[in-house]
């Protein structure tokens, strides 16, 4: 039981008045002269005190009346906690889920959320237990079931902070349900404090909160317009002196409240371009920024939109561009071999080329450095070049693609390159000479980095390619077959060797054995092949909150460890020199992270998740339909509703007042019946 006006409880001290009158005042007022006390014996104090309470019932009524009046003025509120103390079977195990995603950060939303959590903790009964979990995209358990309400309050004050994360109700509810499995009470409850953001709804894949767990939702959100940079098209790696493309940015606002503003592009703090915008009735607008010149190395860029609003974090978009030298690809082929024209054209197509293709004639250079030349393509060589050179090259981190075509002598490869090749060459398969005119690749590992870009809508581009001839291969046990022809023969086989990779393609680069060079998938296919085999990974211009930064990829490629620092956007060191080098670091803050390795300084841009900036709420019915079974109880409390509920609960003050008045009436009757009798008796005696 709680009291909304607890100061009135001080009035309970007034029960001392009737007790005083019964015990003390009575003695003074009723002193009776008597001839002699010769035969009156002193009564022991305890006996006297006990005997003095002759009108205990009267005293009880007076005290009860006063207490009831005091309680009435104290505005009592009967809470679940109080009921729990009355009936231990009602004891609850409560998981307090606090949404600390980016959308919760504006005030007073966050303070309201904390207040709701505090009140929930305060409502806990003696037999209740509670656990605090804060969640955004991921959930973090902050306390244990054993923690006392006081400890929970401290945890709430010290460890809960708004974050820049997105919202994921599915993740939060799953963690809450997992924790409730270890709870001791039968009655289980999830108390979800959130702004009920539509963006937090994700496909639950049929998972729901178990039916024996009730879900109570404290909706602390409110409708507020928010303008934010939804997306920016920018590439990190630039191989020219000027950024080669127009930077595209999309700004989104509320369709019901179109906003006008200005967007500015900054690079290394210098204003490059600015443009005005109007989100219009669609609530979104695309902006373009002119190309700009680049210095050597990494440049930090930001796009800032104005006016700002209650979520200023999403009004800025951070990105990084890096001017790099193109990577050298060495194509080695016989003088009389079929032309690598198509391959050279594919890897040289377009602007901002990451590759520099260099043609070489067998036997090629004496030495090949994997760093200078990350990829070598052997195009239809009759016999393989020196094994030791390429073995050390691959093991040192180089990439090797072997293209098998008409000129290849299987015997020579068996004899010289048996230890390097992941396959055994059997024979040429001339499909056209058989019953059907061509074959095609029908089995593909679409999850592989080479084929991933085709897996959604471009599978047909691979599957429709016609192969007229190919080499029948047998993959070695350690090798991986990435694609097969319709006949089941391997089309593309891969094997790692040391730090490098060897890939074998069973058909030709030119359109003699296949029409692949004439297909649209040819360029992206070989682009991906070159990237994968050469271990060249393109780093995005910007990451999102909670994405992982691979320290290996950001630090020095020489692999030296322990000589780097990670500085967050506030300038504070996150990890550094003397700490064990972790493989991955989760980025928690928007802005530019600085990665200092022993040889160079790199920058990583991090932005808030754009879908988190969409503050559209979800209806409670939809939330229930997705996450909660029909038989489970879902109650949306809402801050305003909570106040109304408390008002309803504390309306029982009038009951206390009524009972108090009845008690005083009873006291009046009893007092009138007892007091006059005693007094009249005494008067008649004297």
């Amino acid at each position, binding site marked *: 039981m709680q009291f909304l006006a607890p100061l009135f409880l001080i009035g309970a001290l007034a029960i001392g008045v009737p007790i005083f009158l019964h015990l003390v005042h*009575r*003695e*003074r007022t*009723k*002193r*009776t*002269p*008597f*001839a*002699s*006390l*010769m*035969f*009156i*014996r*002193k*009564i022991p104090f305890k*006996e*006297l005190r006990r*005997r*003095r309470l*002759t009108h205990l019932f009267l005293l009880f009524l007076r005290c009860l009346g006063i207490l009831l009046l005091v309680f009435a003025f104290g505005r009592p509120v009967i809470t679940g906690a109080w009921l729990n103390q009355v009936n231990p079977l009602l004891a609850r195990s409560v998981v307090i889920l606090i949404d600390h995603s980016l959308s919760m950060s504006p005030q007073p939303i966050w303070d309201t959320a904390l207040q709701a959590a505090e009140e929930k903790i305060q409502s806990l009964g003696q037999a209740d237990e509670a656990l605090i979990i804060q969640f955004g995209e991921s959930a973090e358990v902050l306390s244990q079931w054993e923690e006392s309400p006081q400890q929970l309050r401290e945890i709430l004050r010290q460890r809960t902070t708004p974050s820049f994360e997105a919202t994921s109700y599915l993740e939060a509810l799953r963690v809450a349900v997992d924790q409730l499995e270890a709870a001791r009470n039968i009655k289980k409850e999830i108390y979800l404090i959130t702004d009920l953001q539509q963006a937090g709804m994700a496909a639950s894949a049929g998972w729901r909160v178990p039916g024996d767990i009730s879900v109570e939702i404290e909706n602390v959100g409110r409708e507020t317009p928010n303008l934010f940079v939804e997306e920016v098209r920018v590439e990190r790696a630039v191989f020219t002196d000027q950024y080669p493309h127009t930077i595209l940015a999309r700004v989104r606002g509320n369709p019901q409240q179109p906003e006008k503003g200005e967007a500015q592009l900054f690079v290394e703090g210098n204003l490059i371009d600015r443009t005005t915008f109007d989100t219009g009735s669609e609530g979104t607008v695309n902006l373009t920024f002119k190309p700009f010149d680049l210095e050597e190395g990494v440049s930090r860029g930001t796009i800032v939109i104005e006016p700002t609003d209650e979520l200023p974090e999403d009004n800025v978009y951070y990105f990084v561009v890096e001017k790099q030298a193109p990577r050298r690809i060495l194509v080695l082929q016989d003088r009389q071999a079929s032309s690598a024209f198509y391959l050279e054209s594919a890897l040289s197509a377009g602007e901002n080329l990451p590759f520099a293709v260099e043609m070489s004639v067998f036997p090629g250079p004496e030495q090949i450095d994997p760093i200078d030349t990350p990829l070598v393509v052997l195009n239809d060589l009759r016999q393989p070049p020196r094994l030791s050179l390429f073995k050390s090259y691959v093991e040192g981190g180089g990439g090797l693609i072997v293209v098998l075509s008409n000129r290849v002598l299987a015997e020579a490869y068996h004899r010289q390159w048996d230890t390097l090749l992941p396959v055994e060459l059997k024979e040429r398969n001339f499909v056209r000479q058989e019953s059907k005119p061509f074959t095609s690749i029908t089995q593909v590992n679409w999850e592989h980095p080479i084929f991933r870009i085709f897996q959604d809508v471009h599978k047909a581009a691979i599957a429709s390619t016609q192969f007229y001839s190919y080499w029948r291969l047998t993959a070695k046990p350690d090798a991986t077959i990435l694609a097969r022809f319709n006949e089941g023969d391997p089309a593309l086989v891969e094997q790692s060797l040391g730090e490098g990779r060897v890939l074998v393609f069973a058909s030709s680069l030119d359109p003699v054995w296949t029409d692949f060079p004439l297909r649209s998938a040819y360029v992206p296919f070989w682009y991906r092949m070159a990237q994968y085999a050469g271990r060249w990974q393109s780093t995005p211009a910007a990451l999102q909150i909670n994405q992982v930064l691979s320290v290996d990829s950001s630090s020095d490629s020489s692999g030296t460890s322990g000589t780097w620092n990670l500085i967050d956007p506030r300038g504070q060191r996150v990890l550094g020199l003397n700490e064990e080098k972790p493989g991955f670091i989760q980025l928690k803050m928007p802005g530019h992270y600085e990665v200092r390795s022993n040889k160079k300084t790199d920058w990583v841009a991090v932005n808030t998740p754009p879908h988190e900036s969409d503050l559209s709420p979800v209806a409670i019915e939809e939330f229930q339909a997705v996450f909660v079974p029909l038989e489970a109880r879902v109650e949306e409390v809402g801050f305003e509703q909570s106040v109304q509920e408390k008002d309803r609960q504390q309306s029982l003050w009038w009951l206390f007042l009524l009972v108090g008045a009845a008690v005083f009436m009873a006291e009046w009757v009893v007092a009138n019946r007892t007091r006059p009798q*005693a007094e009249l*008796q*005494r008067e008649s*005696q*004297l």
Partner: protein
Amino acid sequence: MIRTADSNRFIDPQVLSRIRDLQLIAKTVVEGFLTGLHHSPYHGFSLDFAEYREYAPGDDPRLVDWTVYARTDRFYVKKYEGDTNTQLYILMDVSKSMAFSSHSVSKLDYARYLAAALAYLAMRQKDAAGLISFDSDVVSQVPPRTRRGHFFTLLHHLEGLEVTGETDISGALEKLAHLIRRRAVVVLISDFYQDIEKLAKTLRFFYHRGNDLILFHVLDPVELEMPFEDISTLEDMETQEHLSYVPEHSRSTYFSLLNEHIEGLRRECRNISIDYELLNTEKPLDQALHRYLSVREKRY
């Protein structure tokens, strides 16, 4: 209006309290009392000559037998049967406890009526009656006389009595012992809030000096019945000490001690042949007068 003897005998003290005149009270009580005695055992009272006694200062000169003086040249006082042997000393306790009353007649009032009645009775029988009031000391005294106006002196003195200090009967009696030299009837009217052993020692002293003692133990009905039903704080009228009275706890103890006290007094009186009478201030005075006359009779 014809009144019956019984109605005259037992006049309620509360009725007497409405009569302002103490003489009238005494007369009313005694006459009523005597009228009711159909067969009086007290016929021996007369004015028959008994003896001559040499005149002593204080004797009424009118009682001097001038015939004897003529013959012997000495002053002799004529003593008669009825008034020559008895002196009545009325010792009245005027300590503060005697002021206690639960009705219209306090213990002091009752004692006053009783003393007036006894004096009237004594004077009517030609006995000499004196009055001594005391608390812890002798407060006042009127020597016993038989002359006609002495009764009024007594009454005047009785009317002027007021309660004074604390009770110390033994101490007071020891101090006034020298005032009662002759064998006399000593009537002691008190509430006797006194230690029995100490009191008995003093009474024995008086008894052995040849006095006839009558103890009138005057108590208020509240003292006898203790009818308080409620918790209260009682304040001693003499010492102002106060104690809590809880009926359930105190009443039985009170009765036990009071009865023990009364029985102790009665026992000590019986042992030394002293008459003792417990008087309730609500009851008529005839019982006390009976007691006095029985003692008076024993002397003759």
